[in-house]
């Protein structure tokens, strides 16, 4: 596989990213400014009410969220971190710096320990939607 770009200048590969970031920050406001120019305006209080199938909205919509979401979030954190460790491992797995068997065994131990956590979550019902 050929290295297409000189990766020593990492900064160079992020210049487009920065430009895109700026563009993406500017594009919606620019669009909206255009809309401002061309769109009609007629004020009426009913237009600004929150939609609730036509009836008057009751109370605040910004409610506390359910516990279920939280448990998923914890599980997510657990496995996302697992993936975090998988990425660098995947990089060196093919390399020459580490013995391949060692790499596999160590990762299997890691995943094996993680599976305990997974089994625990499952059995405890943390992965069950509780509505």
């Amino acid at each position: 596989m050929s290295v297409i770009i000189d990766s020593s200048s990492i900064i160079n590969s992020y210049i487009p990213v920065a430009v895109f970031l700026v563009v993406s920050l500017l594009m919606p406001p620019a669009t909206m400014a255009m809309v401002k120019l061309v769109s009609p305006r007629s004020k009426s209080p009913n237009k600004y009410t929150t939609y609730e199938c036509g009836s008057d909205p009751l109370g605040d919509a910004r409610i506390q969220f359910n516990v279920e979401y939280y448990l998923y979030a914890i599980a997510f954190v657990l496995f996302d971190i697992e993936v975090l460790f998988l990425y660098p491992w995947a990089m060196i797995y093919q390399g020459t710096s580490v013995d391949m068997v060692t790499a596999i065994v160590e990762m299997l131990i890691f995943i094996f320990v993680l599976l305990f956590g997974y089994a625990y979550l499952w059995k405890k019902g943390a992965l069950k939607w509780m509505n």
Partner: protein
Amino acid sequence: MPLNWYLALSAIVFSIGLYGLMTHKNGIRMLMCVELMLNSANINLVAFSSYNDDMTGQVFALFSIAIAAAEAAIGFAILMSIYRMRDMIDVDKLNILRW
């Protein structure tokens, strides 16, 4: 870029976190401030890693991210217990334990 810029960034982020931790009472906010502080340390580690041309710092940062995640999970769990019991997450109002 000179190393100092990264260090300054890290110091600023750390100070923001510390300030938030000291001034806020809301548990979630405090948690976020702690995460900020940990991340500022990560910036340091990664910057030093690049500066010293040594991978240890980056590996360290990975580990510390994992730890920060676990810490957040536990923090939320505790906050949730508080919320269930007291219906609020104001850390200042926890005052059973004192003399």
